[in-house]
């Protein structure tokens, strides 16, 4: 009995959802206050700074939007109880400029000072992310540079049409980079985020392109009858996992990008999709209906044996992986139509240490950050949708509202 209680309590403990806030290490996190010295106060920028500090897991940020002077070392008594004070000044008269000063709250000693400038106004959120990530590094905390990255996603516009967009992780910045036609499944092709893969469904056969997001130059990689998706990319970018159907049957293939030679990895007369490299990239996890419903399986690239990974849920149709970590979405209600509960679970390639990450709503499209420390996902609850983030180490979670059109696929 006591072991059952222990397991149940421990299992629920790790559910890090927006509705279940776990304030880990509250006493240990660095307390920081923000003092806005901008000529024109920008509340959105203040909120983005707050989000950045929070999701880092390293800071306990003061919720008060203090106003003050940038260059003075005088600090209000109310902020002297913090560990640090960030003074900043944002200007968007021409482009976007940001100046920051990080002071020790106890004696006003300047710890860090820096200025940032970009020629456009709409990329303002990236300056907040860059500043917080720099402060995080100066204080020698574990890296959070993932907050500087673009998110790329496709969304439906009208029946048979879609567009591909870039966003910052908060979705305060959004830009359409491809519109018109049916262009789907965008995926970052490199760590530097200069190129994406995407599938164009605009002819008789889907075509996979690799496109430079700065020049628009694109290269046709491969085409396939039926469907074609780039599901994952090896660490060095030389190989990609594809779901394609050259003979009308969706299976997972590994393509050598340079030589264009491909290897068929799965061979099943049903549905095999969403291949993701795990461990040392000699194995994959994937979604298959070989048991009659969508579930998560794993196999070696070089052998035919397949192992079931998940033994719960009625429909586990989305998966992502980073090294030995695996996250998947599991349907836990029985409605054929209408709202269903989909929760995210974290497990390992060995199938051990499985734990829930969400507790409410329909949580789908889980995607690991490049360092595996944070998971992005889309949450649908009631009539609203949000983009969510879960910091696996600190259990901090954030939700940003999404409005409008349905997201088809997302990557970051």
């Amino acid at each position: 009995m006591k072991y059952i209680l222990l397991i149940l309590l421990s299992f629920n403990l790790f559910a890090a959802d927006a509705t279940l806030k776990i304030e880990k290490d509250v006493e240990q996190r660095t307390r920081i206050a923000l003092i806005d010295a901008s000529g024109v106060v920008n509340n959105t920028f203040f909120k983005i700074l707050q989000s950045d500090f929070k999701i880092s897991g390293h800071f306990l940020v003061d919720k008060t939007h203090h106003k003050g002077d940038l260059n003075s070392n005088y600090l209000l008594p109310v902020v002297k109880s913090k560990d640090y004070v960030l003074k900043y000044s944002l200007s968007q008269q021409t482009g976007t400029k940001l100046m920051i000063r990080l002071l020790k709250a106890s004696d006003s000693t300047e710890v860090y000072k820096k200025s940032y400038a970009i020629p456009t106004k709409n990329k303002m959120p990236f300056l907040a992310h860059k500043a917080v990530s720099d402060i995080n590094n100066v204080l020698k905390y574990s890296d959070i540079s993932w907050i500087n990255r673009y998110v790329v996603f496709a969304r439906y516009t009208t029946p048979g049409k879609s567009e591909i967009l870039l966003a910052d992780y908060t979705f305060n910045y959004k830009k359409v980079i491809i519109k018109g036609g049916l262009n789907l499944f965008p995926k970052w092709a490199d760590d530097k985020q200069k190129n994406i893969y995407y599938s164009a469904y605009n002819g008789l056969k889907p075509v996979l392109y690799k496109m430079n997001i700065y020049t628009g130059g694109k290269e046709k990689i491969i085409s396939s009858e039926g469907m074609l998706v780039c599901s994952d990319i090896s660490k060095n970018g030389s190989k990609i996992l594809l779901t394609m159907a050259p003979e009308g049957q969706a299976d997972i293939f590994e393509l050598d990008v340079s030589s264009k030679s491909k290897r068929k990895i799965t061979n099943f007369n049903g549905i095999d999709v969403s291949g993701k490299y795990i461990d040392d990239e000699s194995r994959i996890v994937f979604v298959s209906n070989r048991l009659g419903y969508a579930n998560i399986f794993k196999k070696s690239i070089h052998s035919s044996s397949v192992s079931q990974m998940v033994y719960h849920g009625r429909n586990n149709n989305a998966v992502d992986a980073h090294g030995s970590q695996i996250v998947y979405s599991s349907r836990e209600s029985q409605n054929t139509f209408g709202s269903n509960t989909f929760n995210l679970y974290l497990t390992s390639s060995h199938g051990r240490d499985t734990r829930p990450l969400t507790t409410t709503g329909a949580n789908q499209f889980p995607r690991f950050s490049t360092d595996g420390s944070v998971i992005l996902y889309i949450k649908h609850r009631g009539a609203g949708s949000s983009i969510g983030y879960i910091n696996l180490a600190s259990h901090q979670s954030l939700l940003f509202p999404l409005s409008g059109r349905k997201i088809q696929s997302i990557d970051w």
Partner: protein
Amino acid sequence: MIQKSIIMALTLTVIIITGCSQKAPDLNANTGSNNVSDANQIAGETVSIDENAYGNENGANSGTFNSSSDGFQSIYFDFGDYSVSSSMENKIAENTNIVNKHNNQIKLEGNCDEFGTDEYNYALGLKRAKAVKDSLISEGIAASRIVIISYGESNPVCSSPTDSCYARNRRVDLRLVK
């Protein structure tokens, strides 16, 4: 006994929540001070491409995408299913007759309702298109005349939140390739 177990579990919980301490580092005032702009990596402007201007290959989006065209009849499927039901056999026969009146290739477009996620839904749509292709082949149509593609949930003909509406989206549309 139960009370003791609960106390043990709560103790474990507190230990896990507390974790390791992580103190704010004490740094020198001059560390990291500089005034250079360090945002070059995000300053570059990305592209904005409008593929409407390029046109669409082979008339894939000719404006008749919400149902079968050229006299064909769409084939409908049960939820999550990709087998052609007996109630659709008459439509398969009628579609076969239309195929036999033309020399064109036939394009089969698999579609799904909205209850699935990204890749899986596209594979489900493909299985439906493949099932209709196999039915046409069994009626004597040459496989080489048939092209299949899945549009997943991207091409709904109905958007109301009703069962009958969802059923209309679980379909394969047929068209002549022109």
